[in-house]
Each structure stands twice: as structure tokens, then as C-alpha cells.
């Protein structure tokens, strides 16, 4: 791999062991994909809480403040978990605080969200960004046309430390054209909610063999942002799609031809009522209808979503625990609107955590004997990880069905007729 003089100094340990280890990892990864060089990033996004402390310490050892911006994924909030009486919260405090101390020393930004673009922190078309968080990667690639390759959370720390990423994969224009096409068959999307788009994205991700870009054809142009986002972020949950072109909706796909770069796709996937019905059913993993928890905000909630939830909860009391994953600035806006107050009065909570992988109510290693054994969600991504990571029963349905479940403690969701 070709290195600049500066990168050679990094690799020789002139900037400390953390930088040396980080660039070595980036070089090995790049070599395995035939990358010719490393390239500077516009900014880097990491996850300090998902990153194991030993790895964190190895990569940040001797690191000085970086000149490039580094932001972070949803965090853990062990002090708040403790104040809610979650029995095993204590064991998370030490590690969280030690890593946060380093994070702050480095001058990195505590965005603590998987939806930074809601804070106005977003790449422009063509910007190279390194990111942990597959939902961040796919959203920034697909919705804004940034150049973001698929990358693990540990590797993204190495990229943030060096301000470099290997020139490979989706950073190269020739790899950004759709290699698979999804055609909608007998589906009428008129009454679809974001849950329906989650379901479609989950099916598409599962059907794509590999990580090459996909184009979804046949949806109305200029769909609401939340719908397009729901569709693309569900793809890397069931598969590894990191760039989804939604024809008529995303910047690199004004037309199907443009999305495919004039090339010929490897195959066409047809989606109809049957596929959607089966996927909806697959996302529901439960035996009896008792709901103990409701999770919203995967990916982190938009202000519109919080507004709708507040509307449904006004003057109500809920029987389950309810968590909305949202960034601190979006929560602040919801509070200013009076919506956060309504939701909290009904019994709901806000946290800038990941409500899927890092949900304190369902994680047995956080909630202990207070673990909720079943959870309802309107996100396919959440349904997938609540079931596999927390091992709880999962109900997947619309926002409204989830709110009804929170109020009654029972699941009355119905499979759509499509």
C-alpha cells in the first residue's frame, strides 16, 4: 500500500502507539481488499460505549487532540439506569466514565446519536466519512450521497484516530452503482407507515447476497424523509447493504438508469404481498400477547415521530416501560414543544441510547431480574436486535399499535393486508 510521508511516520510510531496500531489495522484491512492507499476523512464517527475498553485503550494510547472532527454513536447512560433502579447498572459505570474521559480529552463531539443528520451534522455529496454504525453508514451513503464504506465499530475507532480510511469499496464510484434491482409488484403503498418501509427494507437486505448497492424501483418520488430512512436503514440489519438507491428519492438515483450507472444489474428481486406478509410475520417472535416494554427510536427519533407519539399518549397512562431513543438536542426540542413532558407524564422515557442493541430495559446484563421479557417496536432493526441480543419476545407493528400495547399491556397488532 502506498503511504504518504505523514502516514509513514504514523506507522513508525512517531505519534504514539495508538496511532501506530490504528494505521496498521487500516493497512491490513485495506490490503485484504486491494486498496492502493489511505485517504483523509472529512470527519469520523465512532462508538465509544460499544467499543471494548481494552481495544479503546490500545487505540487511543498516547493520542493527542485530533485536528479532524470526531462524533459518536448512541451512548450508555449507567447513572440514569441506576436512578431507574435497574439492578446491574452499577457494573457499567466505571468503564463508561473512563472512556468518556478520554473522549472529552481528545476534544471529540458528544453527539451520542445514530442520526447526526438531525443535528445538522451531515456530510455533503462526495464527502469521504468513516463511520461505525451500519445505520449511519447506509443513511449517509444513501440519503446524502456521502462516500462511506462499510466498516466495523472497532475499525471505525482506528479510522478516527488516524483521520484516514482505506480507499476501497463504496469510496470508489464504480462500486456505487446498483448491482441489484428491487421491483415492487402488487403493492399499494398509499397507506404505508414507516413500519411498512422497515419491513420492506428488512426483506430487501435479506435477499441481497453480499454488500453491493441495490436500487429500489417503483415507489412514489419524494416520499417523506422518515419513510426513505426507514427503508434504507433496515437493509444492513438482515444483510450488509450499505448503499440503497431509492429511485426518485435519493441523490444518486434520479432514475433507475442513473442508479445503475448504465450497467446491467446482477439480478432483479420482485417483492409482492406474499413476501411482505412473510417478513412481517418473521419479525414477530412471540407466544403470548403480554407486552412489558415498548421501544421507539431505532434509528433515533425525528421530532415528527416524537410529536406523533406525544399526540397518541396525551392524557394516557402506560402499563409497560417505554423508551424513546433520541439525541439530546432533539429531545430538547421535544421538551420545548411540550411533547417530552406529555410522554414522560404518561410514563415514557427518553435516552440517547440505542433502544435496540443497548436497551437497558430488555438487556439481562443491565436490568437483571427486572428485565422486560417482551417488547413491542415499530422498527425492524429493533425487532431483530431485541430478539437476538436481548432474547426477549418481540412484537412488530405500527407506531399506533405499539402505543396501544403500551397503554393496555397487550398486543393487538394485526398483520397488514398489503
Amino acid at each position: 500500500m502506498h503511504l504518504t510521508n505523514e502516514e509513514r511516520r504514523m506507522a513508525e510510531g512517531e505519534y504514539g502507539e495508538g496511532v501506530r496500531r490504528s494505521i496498521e489495522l487500516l493497512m491490513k484491512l485495506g490490503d485484504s481488499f486491494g486498496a492502493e492507499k489511505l485517504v483523509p476523512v472529512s470527519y469520523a464517527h465512532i462508538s465509544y460505549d460499544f467499543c471494548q475498553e481494552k481495544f479503546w485503550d490500545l487505540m487511543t494510547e498516547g493520542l493527542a487532540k485530533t485536528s479532524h472532527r470526531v462524533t459518536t454513536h448512541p451512548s450508555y447512560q449507567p447513572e440514569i439506569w441506576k436512578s431507574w433502579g435497574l439492578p446491574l447498572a452499577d457494573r457499567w459505570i466505571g468503564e463508561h466514565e473512563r472512556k468518556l474521559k478520554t473522549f472529552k480529552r481528545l476534544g471529540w463531539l458528544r453527539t451520542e446519536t445514530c442520526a447526526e443528520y438531525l443535528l445538522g451534522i451531515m456530510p455533503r455529496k462526495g464527502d469521504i466519512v468513516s463511520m461505525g454504525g451500519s445505520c449511519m453508514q447506509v443513511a449517509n451513503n444513501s440519503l446524502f450521497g456521502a462516500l462511506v464504506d462499510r466498516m466495523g465499530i472497532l475499525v471505525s475507532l482506528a479510522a478516527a484516530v488516524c483521520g484516514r480510511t482505506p480507499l476501497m469499496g463504496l469510496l470508489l464510484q464504480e462500486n456505487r452503482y446498483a448491482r441489484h434491482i428491487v421491483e415492487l409488484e402488487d403493492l399499494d403503498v398509499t397507506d404505508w407507515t414507516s413500519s411498512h418501509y422497515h419491513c420492506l427494507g428488512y426483506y430487501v437486505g435479506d435477499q441481497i447476497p453480499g454488500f453491493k448497492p441495490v436500487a429500489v424501483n417503483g415507489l412514489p418520488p419524494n416520499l417523506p424523509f422518515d419513510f426513505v430512512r426507514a427503508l434504507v436503514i433496515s437493509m444492513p440489519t438482515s444483510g450488509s447493504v450499505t448503499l440503497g438507491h431509492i429511485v426518485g428519492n435519493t441523490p444518486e438515483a434520479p432514475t433507475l438508469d442513473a442508479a445503475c450507472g448504465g450497467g446491467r444489474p446482477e439480478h432483479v428481486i420482485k417483492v409482492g404481498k406474499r413476501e411482505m406478509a412473510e417478513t412481517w410475520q418473521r419479525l414477530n417472535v412471540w407466544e403470548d400477547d403480554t407486552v412489558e416494554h415498548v421501544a421507539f427510536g431505532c434509528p433515533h427519533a425525528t421530532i415528527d415521530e416524537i410529536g406523533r407519539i406525544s399526540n397518541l399518549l396525551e392524557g394516557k397512562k402506560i402499563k409497560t416501560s417505554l423508551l424513546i431513543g433520541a439525541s439530546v438536542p432533539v429531545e430538547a426540542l421535544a421538551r420545548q414543544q411540550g411533547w417530552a413532558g406529555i410522554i414522560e407524564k404518561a410514563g415514557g422515557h427518553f435516552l440517547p441510547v440505542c433502544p435496540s442493541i443497548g436497551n437497558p430495559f430488555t438487556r439481562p446484563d443491565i436490568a437483571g431480574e427486572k428485565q422486560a421479557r417482551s417488547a413491542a417496536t415499530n422498527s425492524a432493526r429493533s425487532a431483530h436486535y431485541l430478539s437476538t441480543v436481548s432474547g426477549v419476545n418481540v412484537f412488530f407493528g405500527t407506531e399506533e399499535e405499539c402505543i396501544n400495547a403500551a397503554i393496555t399491556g397487550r398486543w393487538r397488532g394485526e398483520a397488514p393486508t398489503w
Partner: protein
Amino acid sequence: MVIQAHTVCAGRAEGEAVVYEGSFSFMGDLDPLTGTVPVPRHPLEGQSLVNKVFVFTTGKGSSAGDCAAWAAWQEGNAPAAIICLESEPVLSGAVIITGIPTVDKPEKNIFDLISTGDFIKVDADAGTIEIVKKEN
């Protein structure tokens, strides 16, 4: 039989094959504390991957895949080696960080040639897969 393949992470290891003709994520598809597949209705549900030569199509899923791989590896619950059709960056990063010998792009159809239970030697330094068929 020896099959040529492309090196993702160097190293050598051998063990019993677990073959799954589908994609895999260390996050969610492997319980780091037991080394088994915890996914309900998954064809490998309950199967241990500890010290196995795990054969599958490609990586998928959460970018926390490398964190989960690290956790499983720290617990001694990682596969011994990995063979896949085509790796992707999250999987590649995970195996490079944990040093799991891994090859991809095998020159022959591994799903026709390798069955669960076969004894497999992976030499990722040389980029080869050696299949020792199960005694019937």
C-alpha cells in the same frame, strides 16, 4: 483435496466444519458467552461455533460485528477459522482484529465439497483449504 482461496486474515487453523449456506454476523448470530447460535428459527440454532471451521456465504448486519467478535474471542468462544464466499469489511475487520485465520473467494464450490462434520485445515498464509472427509 486442496482448494485455493484469497487471504483475508493470515494464520493457520484446523477443526471440524460447520457449514451454513447463508450470511452471518458476529453481532446477534453468536452468543459470545456460550459460542452458540442463539437466533430463533435459525438453521444453526443452538449449534456451537467454538473452535470450528465455520463456512458460510458472507458477512452481514451490525457494524458492532467486530465488537461481538472481540467479545467472543476474549471468552475463548470464537471459531478456529473462517471460510466464506466473499468477505465484507465488517467481517474482515473482525477477523483481522481477533486474528481468526480467514479465507474467501475459494476457487471451487465449497458448499458442494464441504459438509458439516468434515475435518478442515485452513492455511490462510498460503491461501489454501484442505478437506479431510468425514469417515462414514
